[in-house]
């Protein structure tokens, strides 16, 4: 069973057990436009909730990707190095950025659920 939550910085995080998969939302991918480069965190790196964890660059500009929750990075989606366009094609699936081992469950439950995020983006 998995549950997905969202940040006001347009990251999504999907929790399965204590494994959290992170990416950017469809809304963010559409705003960015064609993604041409992704910089991913190294395995073993400790990230804090709200801390810079990755970088995504479109033809237009570079943007930071923040960790929605804190923890230790367990893997990164290396496929994005050669095929950054996956972020546009399937932002909330094959275009995931990295996985981390969740440290504090409270950080997850504090985030928006799908309905709250949809409401949030409507106002932007």
């Amino acid at each position, binding site marked *: 069973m998995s549950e997905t939550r969202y940040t006001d910085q347009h990251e999504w995080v999907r929790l399965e057990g204590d494994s959290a998969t992170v990416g950017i939302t469809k809304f963010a991918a559409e705003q960015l*436009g*064609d993604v041409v480069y992704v910089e991913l965190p190294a395995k073993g790196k400790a990230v804090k909730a709200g801390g810079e964890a990755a970088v995504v660059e479109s033809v237009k500009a*570079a943007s930071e990707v923040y960790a929605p929750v804190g923890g230790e990075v367990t893997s990164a989606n290396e496929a994005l190095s050669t095929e950054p366009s996956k972020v546009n094609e399937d932002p909330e699936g094959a275009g995931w950025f990295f996985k981390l081992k969740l440290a504090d469950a409270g950080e997850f439950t504090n985030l928006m659920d799908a309905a709250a995020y949809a409401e949030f983006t409507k106002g932007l």
Partner: protein
Amino acid sequence: MTVSTEILRRTPLYALHMELGGKMVPFAGYEMPVQYPAGILKEHLHTRAKAGLFDVSHMGQGFLSGDVHALERVTSADVAGLKAGMQRYGLLLTPQGTIKDDFMFSRLMGEADLYLVVNAGGKEADFAYINETLEGAAQVTPRFDRALLALQGPASEMVLARHATGVADLTFMKVTRTTVAGAPAIVSRTGYTGEDGYEISIEGADAEHVARTLLAEAEVLPIGLGARDSLRLEAGLCLYGHDIDDMINPAEAALLWSVGKRRKEARDFPGAEKTMAGNPARKLVGIRPEGRAPAREGTEIIKDGRVIGKVTSGGFGPSVNAPVAMGYVETMFATLGTKLELMVRGQVMPATVVLMPFVPHTYKREKK
């Protein structure tokens, strides 16, 4: 509450941009489309493969009348030597010889006036400066009401020839009056993408009809400012306010080719002694970052642990399929093949000084 401090102007094609799904952004005082639903990457690649239509009506058009050769007081280009039916690139220089703007000027067949196109950002100031400096010898009449379209890419000739006569016979940098889709037009075989193509000046009232006619052709997609920037960067063409400005002289910008031969010999343009002295302190070069990370404008250029320059334009080159950049380096590091380092987000990234353009120009030049 958002307080708008600037009232943005619109080109005659604003309604069409909205209809086409253009994403509008403020640019040089205008609301302009940065991209359409296809997106920058597809728009860029489509222009190089077929043809793209750009609205560049925000640029400053005007006609210079009087003793038009007096224009040489403010430019290093050879104005007197421009033959009828030809367009030329020139630099508008400050009294100190730095670059106030870059512009195109044309001598139309059988006409005494010169047709000018300057950049959007400083168009009022440019024309005022020309008029003040020329002190009545010649006078620019602005025609900011006119529209300007660019049709760029290998299919441009085929497409435009369906709606205009005489355009296939034009070669690179030639210009003529003709009609496009029935509208009176000034058409030049020029552009800002490195591709073969045309720039089409028409009355504002005719803009939508002409644009719709060209967009109805299967080869043509509308292209926004985003792809215009990536196309010109790959073509190694300077963008005013970024790669050149009023702190830079033509030698530093590697634009001495635009200084007329006669002007070089006579040294009769603003700042000529300094510009022609040779060996400027810094030079504009092409830069290829290694790896995939783009180096954006403002990125510091490092050599032997020391900052030796800055990137002035940089991004991802869709046709090169890799990052490309240009920037100023101390002249001793401007030699082709020089290994440099770029400071991207606190990390050092290797890069090399390379020849521009990054993508070969495909201009249709006159066969000698």
